[in-house]
């Protein structure tokens, strides 16, 4: 599969940055959800489409920064803290998977003609297993929102497909960590809220030096 092409003229034609007729669809969708107590998803539309004005490579570079952050957190910080039991097992497994995301995103950005961002330096405030897991929960849930927020702005369907297969893993990590913490594995109930770039940085930006 070396033939890389943009196979989505339909998607490119969508006005994802403006409020189009289509906005009503999602609003109606969420209104239906609200009947079941899903009112919390109201800001969905603006969040989903205000993510970024850049191209696919820029979106992927933002994702790459987050993946570097997660990978470093699990593999470096996790080791420093001397985790045990399930926390240790998850840190090893999830760290390896985040590293695979880093590799894949780096390759994808190059494929798109972009320049992958360099790995930033991170500072994690975790001091023990419980604060490590609490921060892991924030990072994974933020990752889910970041991908879900940015994905509709992607122009290439192949890039979208890749982002989808990664975000599903972030969601699985988030649920596993939250269960370990005794929290709900579905903090957003039936619909995961997308986050825009500013919201993601508000949650994770302080960790990047």
């Amino acid at each position, binding site marked *: 599969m*070396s033939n890389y092409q943009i196979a989505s003229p339909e998607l490119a034609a969508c006005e994802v940055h403006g409020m189009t007729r289509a906005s009503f*669809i999602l609003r109606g969708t969420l209104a239906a959800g609200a009947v079941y107590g899903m009112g919390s998803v109201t800001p969905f539309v603006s969040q989903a489409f205000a993510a970024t004005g850049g191209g696919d490579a820029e979106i992927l570079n933002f994702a790459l920064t987050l993946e570097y952050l997660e990978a470093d957190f699990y593999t470096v910080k996790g080791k420093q803290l001397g985790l045990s039991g399930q926390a240790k097992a998850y840190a090893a497994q999830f760290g390896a998977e985040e590293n695979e995301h880093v590799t894949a995103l780096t390759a994808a950005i190059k494929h798109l003609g972009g320049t992958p961002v360099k790995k930033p330096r991170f500072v994690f405030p975790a001091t023990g297993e419980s604060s490590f897991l609490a921060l892991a929960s924030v990072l994974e849930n933020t990752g889910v929102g970041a991908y879900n927020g940015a994905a509709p702005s992607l122009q290439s369907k192949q890039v979208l497909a890749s982002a989808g297969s990664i975000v599903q893993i972030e969601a699985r990590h988030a649920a596993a960590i939250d269960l370990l913490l005794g929290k709900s594995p579905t903090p957003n109930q039936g619909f*995961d809220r997308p986050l825009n770039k500013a919201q993601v940085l508000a949650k994770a930006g302080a960790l990047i030096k």
Partner: protein
Amino acid sequence: MPSPPIDEAAPQPVGIVERLVRDDVDRKRFLKMAGGAGAASFGAFVLAACGSSKKTASTAAAPVATSSTSSTSSNATGDLAILNYALTLEYLETEFYAKVVASGLFSGKVGSLIKDFGRQEATHVEALKGAVMKLGGTPVAKPAGKFPISSASQVAKLAYTVENLGAAAYLGQAANIQNAEVLAAALAIHTVEARHAATLGTLVKKSVTPEGAFAAPADMPTVLAAVKPFLA
């Protein structure tokens, strides 16, 4: 973007997806019409980028529907077909959880998670019905399901299978969805199915990421064949 034409095509029988599940000939015709490909190339990009030779990368993308078929607004093509397909799956999941809750096999923390998941699937049903109607389509009728419910461990295993299939089904359609808002809604549901699947994975002592770092999509024929045993 022009407003969608009123659904003036030949009236779609209610429950078309259900019929497609039951009828192989219908299903093949439908998939040909809807250009149910795209899913096949799903993940190929990442896999190609990784230099991996996983089997999902070997299926080339089949031709997408011609403009003559995709321009008609009917339940059988495009986003409406995908939404009704998802709706059928959500109906089945909702009924499954309702039966599991009624069985009384689970109590305590697990019982409460099962109830949460059932409620969330019900909100997906409502959301998808709303989306179908907003697009000018007719929501499929609720199919009658049948689920083997014998023991807690058997049900947990089945739930794990069902949720993994659901997550893979959404993933398999993401690149086929044309309307960006429908896509945003599908993504918001997709990751919740993934959370359910991971949770059930911990219950049945299976990996929360059975496919490793990259989730595998499932295309429509695969999913429809897999849910066939659950239709009464």
